[in-house]
């Protein structure tokens, strides 16, 4: 028994045990990727030509990006809902449903975050 323990202790001292953690599978979501690519394409082409037209902060395309990356398909619905709310009359609900914030480059905008529509 003692001999066995000595051999075991020697074995434990001389060998290093490596615990191999299974790699986390990073899920590649095609739907999210396609939507994000579409939004980026819009931001780099049409949005640059339009200038600052959105009344909200973050702007509708950034809102859509955040919503889709956080909530997936539900985020698409949130983004569409946001597009329907993005019009000049949104200022009527300033400080009621949307707090007014001063942005760095875009002046005063209505704050509206995806988390509020979860």
């Amino acid at each position, binding site marked *: 028994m003692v001999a066995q323990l000595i051999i075991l202790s020697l074995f434990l001292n001389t060998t290093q045990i490596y615990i191999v953690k299974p790699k986390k599978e990073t899920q590649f979501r095609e739907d999210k990727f396609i939507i994000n690519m579409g939004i980026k394409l819009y931001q780099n082409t049409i949005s640059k030509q339009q200038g600052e037209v959105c009344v909200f902060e973050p702007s509708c395309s950034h809102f859509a990006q955040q919503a889709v990356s956080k909530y997936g398909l539900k985020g698409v619905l949130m983004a*569409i*809902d946001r*597009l*329907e709310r993005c019009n000049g009359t949104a200022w009527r609900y300033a400080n009621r449903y949307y707090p007014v914030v001063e942005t760095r480059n875009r002046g005063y905008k209505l704050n509206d975050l995806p988390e509020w529509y979860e």
Partner: protein
Amino acid sequence: MICLNGMNKILIFLIMTPVFCFSNALDNTFAHYLENEGEIESSIIEYKRLLIDSSQIYNTDGIHIKISRLNMRIGNYKDALYELNKLENNDKINNLKGISYMMLGDMERARNDYFRNDTLIGISYILENRFNRAGKYIDISNPPKLKNPYLGLTLSIIIPGMGRVYAGRTFDGIYSFMLIGSSALSSYLYFRDNNRVFGYTYGVISALLYMGNLYGSYKACKIYNNYSIDVYKNNELIKLKFSKWF
């Protein structure tokens, strides 16, 4: 000129000595100043310093209460309870303890163990959104009429944008109705002209807008309810002078 004989001098000396020696100990002017300047945390530290200076001589219950009130004002309810637990229970201390527990979310404990005041019990029910129950203890105005999100959803299913109008966002409702209507009309017109590509494109766009509108109507009702309840609660708490307890 007042002439003092020897005995009087000794008497005055005996009376005034503790006053001069320990006058600094309870000089809370600076702590008051910090409090008025909005430096609540620094004010708490100053009051704690006073506590150390004067703990051997004076009854310091008042300073403990002041520290706990200041902690409550900045939202450190656990620290406030820690200070209050050092004191003997009375109505005032119980109320403050109850408010701390209430603000920490333990309403039942606050009501059962500490509150003996109808106003505070009513406030605890208001904070829980149990307005009918609160009405049994205090006079409150009628709670706001809430919008049913499912009714909003149903209205939007029947007429796009109607749910938003129901939720009080008339212009958003009209705008979304025009968006959905125009894209659906475009789809119909393209199909009529046998242009299937544009017909399907506008069809998909109008379907997506319709679904987004349903979600938006449901959420608009919920946001309306949350906003109305918040405004109502704030107004009631101001009317009941809830801040005077801090």
